[in-house]
């Protein structure tokens, strides 16, 4: 049985193909102005990686910010539900998922089946979301995906005094003008984003182990900063960025199997 999950976010679109409950293909692509085109493109890429045709997909579940605009998705699920489900499938011991997206952040408490117990969501303030990183990367003419590596070269601790993205941008530019090292500044940036996301997450009681999902989790500097902000070792899952799409694909499997439970947790291939 072949099913798919498609997660169209504000910055990237993700698609996952599950064949008989195993990860057969996945893809990530930047979103274009049309969520539908973005979804179709990324789904096509994932299908090609899985060595199948898009027509072979029995059912596809959509999620993410652009989920309402995916005509090829039979049903849609909330991002909260998908991230919870995906994370527990990837690592059955996970009890809390912190997802930092391009324009939002969420903390989701889950039960052993991956069902959502409690969650908190922020899309009111850009601080604590991926947008903060993006704006600063742009201002300093750095690539978003290089930030983790750059921060790893930090030698001197530095703390930003501003939490607001707008104020922090000004602060960072003056730090650069004062001759502070870029790696130190980026490390401070990671900590600022992490602190903000953590103060949000703390409004629910976090059950360990906690994992970090979303594209931001691939940034080793952010991963480290989140661990520090939360005061605990985070659990690393193999596919943090496509986690929501994995969850969506698992829901797609449910609709095909009608009532059967999800496959063996932890069965992640390729």
């Amino acid at each position, binding site marked *: 049985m072949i099913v798919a999950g498609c997660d169209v976010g504000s910055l990237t679109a993700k698609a996952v193909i599950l064949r008989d409950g195993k990860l057969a293909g996945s893809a990530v692509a930047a979103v274009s102005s049309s969520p539908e085109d973005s979804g179709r493109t990324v789904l096509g890429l994932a299908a090609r990686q899985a060595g199948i045709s898009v027509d072979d997909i029995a059912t596809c579940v959509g999620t993410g910010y652009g989920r309402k605009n995916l005509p090829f998705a039979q049903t849609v699920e909330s991002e909260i539900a998908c991230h919870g489900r995906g994370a527990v499938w990837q690592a059955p011991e996970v009890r809390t998922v912190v997802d930092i997206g391009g324009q939002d952040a969420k903390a989701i408490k889950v039960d052993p089946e991956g069902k959502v117990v409690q969650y908190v969501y922020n*899309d*009111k*303030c*850009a601080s604590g979301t991926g*947008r903060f990183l993006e704006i600063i990367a742009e201002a300093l003419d750095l690539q978003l995906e290089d930030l983790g590596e750059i921060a790893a070269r930090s030698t001197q601790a530095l703390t930003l005094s501003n*939490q*607001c*993205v*707008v*104020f922090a941008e000004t602060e960072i530019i003056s730090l650069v003008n004062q001759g502070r090292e870029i790696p130190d500044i980026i490390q401070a940036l990671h900590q600022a984003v992490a602190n903000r996301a953590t103060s949000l997450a703390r409004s629910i009681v976090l059950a360990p182990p906690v994992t970090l999902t979303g594209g931001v989790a691939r940034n080793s500097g952010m991963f480290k900063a989140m661990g520090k902000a939360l005061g605990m070792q985070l659990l690393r899952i193999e596919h943090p960025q496509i986690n929501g799409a994995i969850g969506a694909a698992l829901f797609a499997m449910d609709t095909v199997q009608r009532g059967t439970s999800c496959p063996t947790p932890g069965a992640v291939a390729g």
Partner: protein
Amino acid sequence: MPVAGCDVGSLTSKAVLMDRSRILASVIIKSKAKPWESATDVMNQALARARLTLGEIRYCVGTGYGREKIPFLSEALSEIACHGKGARWLLPSARTVIDIGGQDCKAIKLEKDGRIARFTANDKCASGTGRFLEVMARILGLELEELGERSARSRNPVTLASACTVWAQADVIQHWNDKVPIEDIAAGINHAMAARMAVLANSIGVEPDVCMTGGVSKNRGVLTALEKQLGTRIRRPTKGDPQLAGAIGAALFAQERIQGGGIR
């Protein structure tokens, strides 16, 4: 005996020279990189206008975010204290003062006798501060003053989806790309600004008369939008420039000091 008040803010610096509650001279300049440079420059300009020298100033009170760095300071006092006092001088009937600075906003409630009853301030988030308007004006290619004028001609103000400056910025760009008339975007920006200020003001309870101070108070669009949000009239001070409120308050405290009065 002349005294001085110097308010070194994030965007502008202000100096006021006073003698027996009369303004001798006042100057507003754009703040420089270093607060002490701003303070020296604005004070020298004010002194030149009043044909005075620094040596003739009996007492100088500093306020604003750069107040500790003012070189010729007799004493530094909080912005809340100075703005409350200055607003009261500008509008003696004021019971609520809403001050919008370049990077912060404050709401101050005054007792009948002018003492500060309650206050609240936001300097954590750019939303609801002058910075919000500055960012938006830049996107539209307008001067700050033009935002108010333009919005007055709006028929269909847009609604901005978020209070956050970052998200609202994306929203404004979207409206701009959709060829929405600039008047309607400007009005939407002023509404969003006023909504945020109203939240702050309502958190301490608004009591008339309401007085608005700070540079943003010169923006008619924001003022009108805020009046609508609060459901009350906002009085515009006639006795002086509302942007000078902090510096006026500082100078009034300086005067009390040389008269041997305590800080109230």
